[in-house]
């Protein structure tokens, strides 16, 4: 079984090579964390199952997430494109940390969806292939 920590490095490389409008969603239990390639940035979004504690919110803000805004019921974190290595690793870390904390503590529960938003064609990032093999 692949672990969350083992996903970070391969996910970081995958993030650097997404096509425009490619997205990757990790979801379970009504919560998700996802990332989409925009023209000049990658946007990560986190939707929690319900209200989170103040400590959890502070931790998310500290990790670079922006609080949900009116009409945008998700936490958001943007990274400029092209990604440098440290930015790719940091974004992957934040996505995996969010998945572990707010989607499912056990990676075995996590499902994923990876597609191009414009064409709806599935994509197969290497990191998620590792996740698929382990499920």
């Amino acid at each position, binding site marked *: 079984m692949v672990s969350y920590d083992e996903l970070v*490095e391969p996910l*970081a*490389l995958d993030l*650097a*090579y*997404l*096509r*425009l409008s490619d997205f990757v969603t990790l979801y379970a239990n009504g919560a998700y964390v996802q990332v989409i*390639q925009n*023209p*000049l940035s990658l946007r990560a979004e986190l939707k929690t199952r319900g209200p989170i504690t103040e400590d959890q919110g502070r931790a998310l803000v500290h990790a670079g997430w922006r609080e949900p805004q009116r009409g945008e019921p998700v936490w958001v974190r943007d990274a400029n*494109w*092209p*990604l*440098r*290595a440290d930015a*790719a*690793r940091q974004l992957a870390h934040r996505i995996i940390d969010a998945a572990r904390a707010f989607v499912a503590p056990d990676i075995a529960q996590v499902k994923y969806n990876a597609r191009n938003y414009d064409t709806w064609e599935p994509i197969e990032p290497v990191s998620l292939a590792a996740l698929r093999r382990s499920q």
Partner: protein
Amino acid sequence: MTLRAISIDQAARLFTIVRDSFFAWTVPEVPFLLDSLGWTLTLEIPRTGAIADTGWGVPGAEAELLYRDRTVESAMIYATSRASDEPADRFAVLDVFESLCAVAARVLGPMSAVIPGDVPRVQWRGRLATATIKNVGIGVLIDWCRNEHQDFNDSIGRY
């Protein structure tokens, strides 16, 4: 990590020549272009192309010129050595790509196209030619291409 890349100063000089050169993309002008770049012709096949040593001290960092009769269609410039499969090298490619894009933006101004994907690319289209920085995973290339040839490549999805 074994990846080696051209320096920021070398890149800035190259992009400055890309910006300021009067090169009109003819084969007879090639010696003058190479002289301005400080490059040395190492092989030339008439009507087909040429290879130039960039003198950057980076293994494999040469330039390949593509000819069509008396026209120069493109110059493919290798800005890095070939990356290994090791993660350190693959991540280093990301840093080189971003750094070269930043240098090019400082010298050439706003980019004309940004193309994320399997081969991430950023382009600056000038009056006669287009400069494209490409992350090909195992390295970073700078493709300086006559606009007509660039348009042809785009039309057939070749990058």
